């Protein structure tokens, strides 16, 4: 079965929608242009994954979301995810933002944390210069479509020298099968600032059992000396196709840390990339995933080095059950002139079933002599020698395998920046591994 992606938008529709939402002219123009591009551009070529065969027809319709005054008005599972967000919390439901909170202390410091639609209206001067500059609309059909259709979203701005100690959190959820769900996340960390952002992306209620597409783009601008820690856990149902592109651009001595949990039940395209433009800039990405049933996933981490003495670390670990397939790509590119750059990557797949499939593709593209780079990749099963060792201490086979599997994922799980989120991630892993 092959479902053609008919473009679900055109210039007129995009313009009309943008105007009806009262978006500024510059944004309406961007959306119109993106809609036009979407009609002509092709889908991205994804290594060994035929996303053109995925069900990309159910983009949904924009539906205005009703803001809530209290979190208690939200579905219970969403409330759980939103608990303990002390510094700042944003909630998107379907096509739009429904709740926003930011501590007075951070407001006073000039931190902005709102949905991106509001930010585009109220802080054009801070949004317009950056929006779509890290991931341009004209890259392919998906980026163009997203540019035309994105809704709700998140905007984080941290002024110069401001350090946000407590993580900002967002819950992006959809519970309406017909609502377009396409958040765009833009994080701008000014020079020598510091911030941690964590989000959960879920489907619930009626949306958990209907075909849908979630497409999101994350853009991070880390200016000189800034540090951005970004953690995101995706947990959408088997009917939902998740297309998530994340990209950061780093100035001198900036640092970005990515922690990604690709824990959907449906097909997933996940691409996380750092553009190390500045000298001394560093990035660290950690991705974990569990595949089950007939799920297909393409998980990519990338680092491109231009800056001298820049450093990138990338780890992806995936556990594949049933008939799940994961194509895992790691791409380290070092451009000419990026002397003393260093890039390391590891992709590991643990296969729990003879019908599951995992492919690890480490790629090093190096155009400069004075650099260091390394990669390690492995695809394997639970090591029987290790199972024997644990069992020889009285641990049952099931528990032994469990320990080994969680141990395999531990290097990423232990890096999640908030205790509550880490515990939630642990519960999610258990759900996916023990279902």
């Amino acid at each position, binding site marked *: 079965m092959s479902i053609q992606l008919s473009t679900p938008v055109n210039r007129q529709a995009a313009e009309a929608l943008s105007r009806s939402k009262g978006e500024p002219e510059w944004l309406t123009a961007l959306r119109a242009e993106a809609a036009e591009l979407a009609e002509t551009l092709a889908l991205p070529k994804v290594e060994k994954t035929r996303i053109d065969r995925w069900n990309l027809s159910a983009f949904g319709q924009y539906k205005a979301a009703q803001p809530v005054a209290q979190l208690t008005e939200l579905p219970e599972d969403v409330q759980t995810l939103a608990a303990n967000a002390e510094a700042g919390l944003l909630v998107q439901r379907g096509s739009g933002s429904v709740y926003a909170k930011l501590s007075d202390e951070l407001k006073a410091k000039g931190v902005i944390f709102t949905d991106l639609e509001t930010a585009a209206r109220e802080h054009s001067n801070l949004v317009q210069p950056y929006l779509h500059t890290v991931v341009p609309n004209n890259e392919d059909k998906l980026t163009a479509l997203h540019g035309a259709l994105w809704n709700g979203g998140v905007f984080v701005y941290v002024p110069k020298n401001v350090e946000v100690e407590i993580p900002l959190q967002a819950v992006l959820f959809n519970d309406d099968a017909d609502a377009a769900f396409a958040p765009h996340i833009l994080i701008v960390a000014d020079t020598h600032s510091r911030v941690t952002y964590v989000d959960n992306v879920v489907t619930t209620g009626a949306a958990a059992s209907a075909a849908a597409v979630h497409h999101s783009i994350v853009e991070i601008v880390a200016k000189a000396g800034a540090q951005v820690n970004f953690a995101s856990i995706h947990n959408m149902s088997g009917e939902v196709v998740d297309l998530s592109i994340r990209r950061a651009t780093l100035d001198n001595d900036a640092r970005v840390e990515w922690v990604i949990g690709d824990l959907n039940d449906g097909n997933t395209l996940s691409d996380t990339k750092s553009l190390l433009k500045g000298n001394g800039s560093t990035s660290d990405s950690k991705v974990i995933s569990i595949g089950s049933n007939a799920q297909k996933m393409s998980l990519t981490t990338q680092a491109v080095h231009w800056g001298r003495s820049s450093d990138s670390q990338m780890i992806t670990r995936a556990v594949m059950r049933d008939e799940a397939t994961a194509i895992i790509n790691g791409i380290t590119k070092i451009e000419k002139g990026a002397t003393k750059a260093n890039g390391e990557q590891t992709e590991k797949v643990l296969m729990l079933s003879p019908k599951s499939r995992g492919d690890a593709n480490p790629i090093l593209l190096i155009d400069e002599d004075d650099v260091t780079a390394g990669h390690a990749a492995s695809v394997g099963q639970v090591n029987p*020698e290790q199972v024997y060792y644990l*069992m*020889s*201490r*009285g641990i049952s086979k099931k528990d032994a395998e469990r320990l080994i599997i969680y*141990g395999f994922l531990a290097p990423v799980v232990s890096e999640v920046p908030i205790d509550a989120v880490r515990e939630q991630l642990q519960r999610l892993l258990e759900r996916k591994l023990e279902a």
Partner: protein
Amino acid sequence: MSTQFVINDLKASVEGKEILKGINLEIKGGEIHAIMGPNGTGKSTLASALMGHPKYEVTGGTALLDGEDILEMGVDERALAGMFLAMQYPSEITGVTNSDFLRSAINARRGEGNEISLIKFIRQMEGKMKDLEMNPEFAHRYLNEGFSGGEKKRNEILQMMLLDPKLVILDEIDSGLDIDALRIVSNGVNAMRSEDRGFLVITHYQRLLNYIKPDFVHVMMQGRIVKSGGPELAERLENEGYDWVKEELGIVDETVGQA
């Protein structure tokens, strides 16, 4: 009833090749038996076959621990029945901390609903680690990952102390240990000597047996126990090597290879 372990005509193969050709051995609670023998004569194979390593196929015989044939049991059941093997080459397991592992092992023995409290566990573990002069940081390290040879051996003894087994097999516990560690580990073993625990100590060196005094010494060649005696046998082997044993028994090649 004090522990009794009886191995009767145990035969085992690995990858279709017979390595153990009929082992007979009886160990009573309170006794320490040493097994010596040249490289490649089947000592570790005996240990692995008794513990149930999946690569080793038992092709005959029995091994009765207090009357029950452990060879009929799964690896975990053997451990729960009281078997413990300190391995010559312990596995490294990334992502599983030593303390999580130890707690799982202790709780497996105690059974569901009777799990050890965290406080009590930590107290026990830290106490034993102190006895073994292990840096407390080893509790939080991943299991055996990056441990030096000697650190792995201490960690094996730590497990033995916490799991309180009935029949302990130590496979070259002295290899990789410096002189102080040898004393510390031996003290740990000696502290565990009791009427209801038997030991089978595999070693190449008399030195270990100066610390852990055996009641019986056996020599293994060609996958069999070819000679048994008291502690004096180990001393003679240390001084004279194995040639005299081979001569006495008319053995040319002591390995299991082409016997």
